[in-house]
């Protein structure tokens, strides 16, 4: 069965520190990859996505992620975090199984707390 692993459950950083959140998936075929973010009290929203092309994708608010096919990974990065990045981050994968429905598999999430 397809699965998504996020290695860090809780991350605490100081402002201006660099961030990398790990995400690995298990599926050997073609995938679409997503990072979603949920700020406190807000709904889940898309941070960035990878469908094809350049494996380094840039999203909103200075975030980027790199798809490394050989490692089945899609890690999220930001060079310098801000207090406003405090949120929960979810990695998600859509495996192309022949259907047309975007059925996503989510990781368990990483809670990021940025200290001012």
């Amino acid at each position, binding site marked *: 069965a397809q699965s998504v692993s996020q290695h860090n459950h809780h991350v605490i950083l100081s402002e201006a520190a660099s961030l990398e959140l790990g995400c690995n998936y298990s599926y050997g075929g073609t995938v*679409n990859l997503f990072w979603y973010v949920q700020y406190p009290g807000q*709904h889940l929203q*898309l941070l960035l996505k990878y469908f094809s092309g350049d494996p380094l994708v840039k999203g909103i608010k200075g975030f980027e992620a790199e798809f490394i096919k050989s490692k089945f990974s899609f890690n999220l990065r930001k060079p310098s975090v801000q207090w406003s990045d405090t949120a929960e981050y979810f990695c998600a994968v859509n495996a192309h199984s022949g259907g047309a*429905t*975007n059925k996503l598999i*989510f*990781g368990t999430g990483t809670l990021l707390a940025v200290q001012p």
Partner: protein
Amino acid sequence: DVKVTQSSRYLVKRTGEKVFLECVQDMDHENMFWYRQDPGLGLRLIYFSYDVKMKEKGDIPEGYSVSREKKERFSLILESASTNQTSMYLCASTAGLETQYFGPGTRLLVL
């Protein structure tokens, strides 16, 4: 902008009650989804629908049913609520293989 709305932000129900959670999207999306979000477990898919009157079970359908009578509306039904269904419920919609758009969530407490 896509808008996905959910009928309630907070609900408190008693064990055994029938509970309806409503979701409406305004972008004419074919696909709609219901998830539950629990700490440490992420989002788990309960049911999804790829067309009016069509539905498919997700990963944790037990204790739930759904209804999609109109394209824009997808309802989640707890036939007889139990305490282990206390959770945050998220609705989402999408067109084809594109990005899923989420509603604000309904936090359900079953006493």
